[in-house]
C-alpha cells in the first residue's frame, strides 16, 4: 500500500532562500503526523507543497502513490484547516461548511444535510445560521475543521491549528482532534512550533531546521534519543553536553544529551557546578546550573530540599540515560 504522502528530494526555493532543501519524507496512511520546527524552518512550506499552494522547485511529491507535482489545489483530494481559519465572512456557518459540496454542484438540501452532520461531528449543532463573526475562536476553529472534512479528504492538513486558542481550550482541542482522527481513520498532517503539542498528539513527527528534516521518528524516540544538538535543544530543552564535558562525566568523547528530569543534584561528583537560578514549575523546581560555562538544568521534585542560588553542587544520573549524539 502506498504511503499517504511521500516527498522525494523535494526542494522549494524563494529567490535565494531555500525554504525547503532536499526533504525526503514518508507519511503512513491513517497516521497523525506532526511537522515541528521553529518559524522559518520550512514546515509550513512543506504543508503548502502537499496542499498545492506551492510547487516544488525540484523533486517529486506523491499522494497515495500519484505524482501531484503538477496538480492544482482544487484537484487534490486533501483539505486544509488554515491557521487564520479563513472562514468566509459573508456566508453563515452552514454555507461555509457546505462550500466544498456547493462548488461540486451538490443540491442545497443534500449539502445542508451533510453540513449539519459535520457540524454535529465537531459539536456545533444548531450554530448553522450564525455568521463566523458571531463565534468565539474555538468555535471558528471547529467550523474550519468541519468545512475541511466535508469533502471527505484522504489527508487533512492542519496549519498551526491550535495556535490562536488559550491554554485550556488548546488542551481540550488536542484530545478532540486526536479522538476525531482515530474515529475517521484518515491521515492528519499538522504543523506546529509547540513541541508539547507535537509530542502529545502525533504518532510520528518530523523536526525541521533550516529547510531540512533534522529527525523523523515517534515522539518517544525523538524526545529520548535526539539525533542532533538542535533536536535535543528544541524538543523539550534537553541538556546538551559538549564532548569534553561528556567525557568528564564518564561518557565517550562525543556530544551528548541528558534530560533535566533524569538529572539529580548530588553532594559529590566528577564536575561541580554553580546554581544560577531556580524556576518553580509546580510539580517540581527547575534548577539551572553553570557547569564550567555550559548551562545545564536539573528537575528537583516537589518536597525535596532546594539549593541556594550561588552555591556549589554536583550532579548524578543513571549512565544509561546519557544519550550520545553521533550525528551532532
Amino acid at each position: 500500500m502506498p504511503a499517504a504522502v511521500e516527498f522525494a528530494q523535494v526542494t522549494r526555493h524563494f529567490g535565494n532562500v531555500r525554504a525547503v532543501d532536499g526533504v525526503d519524507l514518508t507519511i503512513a496512511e491513517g497516521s497523525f503526523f506532526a511537522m515541528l520546527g521553529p518559524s522559518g524552518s520550512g514546515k509550513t512550506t512543506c504543508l503548502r507543497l502537499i496542499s498545492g499552494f506551492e510547487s516544488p522547485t525540484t523533486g517529486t511529491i506523491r499522494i497515495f502513490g500519484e505524482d501531484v507535482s503538477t496538480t492544482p489545489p482544487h484537484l487534490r483530494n486533501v483539505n486544509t484547516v488554515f491557521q487564520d481559519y479563513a472562514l468566509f465572512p459573508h456566508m453563515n456557518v452552514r454555507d461555509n461548511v457546505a462550500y466544498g459540496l456547493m462548488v461540486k454542484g451538490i443540491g442545497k438540501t443534500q449539502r445542508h444535510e451533510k453540513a449539519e452532520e459535520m457540524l454535529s461531528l465537531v459539536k456545533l449543532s444548531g450554530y448553522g445560521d450564525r455568521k463566523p463573526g458571531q463565534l468565539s475562536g474555538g468555535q471558528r476553529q471547529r467550523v474550519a475543521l468541519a468545512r475541511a472534512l466535508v469533502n471527505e479528504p484522504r489527508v487533512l492538513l492542519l496549519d498551526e491549528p491550535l495556535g490562536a486558542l488559550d491554554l485550556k481550550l488548546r488542551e481540550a482541542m488536542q484530545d478532540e482532534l486526536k479522538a476525531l482522527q482515530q474515529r475517521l481513520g484518515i491521515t492528519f498532517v499538522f504543523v506546529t512550533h509547540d513541541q508539547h503539542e507535537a509530542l502529545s498528539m502525533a504518532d510520528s513527527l518530523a523536526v525541521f531546521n533550516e529547510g531540512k528534516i533534522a529527525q523523523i521518528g515517534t515522539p518517544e524516540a525523538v524526545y529520548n534519543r535526539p539525533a542532533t544538538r538542535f533536536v535535543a535543544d528544541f524538543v523539550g530543552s534537553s541538556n546538551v553536553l559538549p564532548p569534553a564535558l561528556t567525557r568528564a562525566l564518564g561518557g565517550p568523547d562525543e556530544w551528548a544529551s541528558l534530560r533535566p528530569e533524569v538529572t539529580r543534584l548530588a553532594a559529590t561528583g566528577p564536575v561541580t557546578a554553580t546554581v544560577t537560578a531556580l524556576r518553580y514549575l509546580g510539580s517540581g523546581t527547575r534548577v539551572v546550573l553553570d557547569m564550567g560555562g555550559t548551562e545545564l538544568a536539573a528537575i528537583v521534585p516537589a518536597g525535596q530540599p532546594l539549593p541556594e542560588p550561588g552555591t556549589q553542587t554536583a550532579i548524578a544520573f543513571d549512565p544509561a540515560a546519557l544519550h550520545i549524539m553521533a550525528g551532532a
Partner: protein
Amino acid sequence: MPAPAIIQPKGLSDRLTALFWRRPRLLLGLLLVPPLFWLGVVYLGSLFSLLIQSFYSIDEFSGMVVPEFTLKTYAELFRAANLDIIIRTLLMAAAVTLGAALIAFPIAYYAARFAKGRWKAVFYLGIMLPLWSSYLVKVYAWKLILAKEGIVTWAAGITGTSSLLDAVLALPVVGGGSLSTSYIGMFLVFTYVWLPYMILPMQASLERVPTSMLEASADLGATRAQTFRTVVLPLAMPGVIAGSIFTFSLTLGDYIIPQIIGNSASFIGMAVYQLQGTAGNTPLAAAFAVVPILIMLAYLGFAKRAGAFDAL
C-alpha cells in the same frame, strides 16, 4: 524622598487632558460640532430648501415663482422632452458605471493582490495623476483625441481600420458624425474621467480579502471562476457599490461633458444649469435636481436588498 504618586499638573494642556479623561465625550463633542453644524444646518438646510422649491411652480405669464405647494412642477418632468432627458442621463450613467467597473476591476485586483512596494506607489501615482490636472483640460484633450480630424481618426487611417471606425460611427443612436459628437465618445470621456473613483474603493475592499480565503476556496475544490463568483465578488461588493455611487452620481449630475462632447442633447445637469440660469425656472430646476437623489436612493435600496453589503 521617593517621587510622589500623583504628579502636579503643569499648565493648561495637563488640565485639559485631565478634563477630557474625566469626560471622554466632551472631546468627541467638541470635534464633532463644526462638521455636524455644516452637515446639519448648511447642507441639509439647502437640501431641504431645494426640496421645498421643487414643490413650487412658475407662473406661465409673469415668469414669477409662485410659492404655493403643488405637484405641477413634478408633473412637468413627465413631459416627453423632459422624460427623454432623464432616461438619457440614466442610461448614460448606468453604461458609464458598468464600463468603469469592468475596466477598474482588473486594475484594482492587481494592485490589491500583487503590487508591492515600488509598484504599489506606481499604481497610486498612475491612478491619482490624472486627478491633478483640471477636469476641463482633460475633457478638451479628449475632444481633440476624438474629433473628426483627431488622433483616433488618424490612427485608424494608418492602421487601416478606418472602415471599422466608420462602422462603429454608423451604429444607430450611439453613433454620429465623429466620436467627439457621439454618445460613444461621451461614454469614453465619462468613463475615463470617473475611473479613479471606481478603482480606489474597489482596491480598498479587495485589499481586505486575505489570500488564505482564496486558498481555502481552491482547497475545497472551487475553480477560479467559482472562487471569483462566490468569494471575491461578494467580498469586493461594498467597494464596487461605493465606486458605482461615485461614477453613477457624478455622471447623473455632470453638465460640462455633455456640453463639450456629444450631439448637444440635454442631460439632467445641463437642464438644471439652464433652467435655474437663463430660463429662471427654479422650481423645475429643483425638481430635476431631486431626480438623481431619488435614483441614488432607489439604487442603494436595491443594492442592499441584493445583499451587496452583507460582507461589511
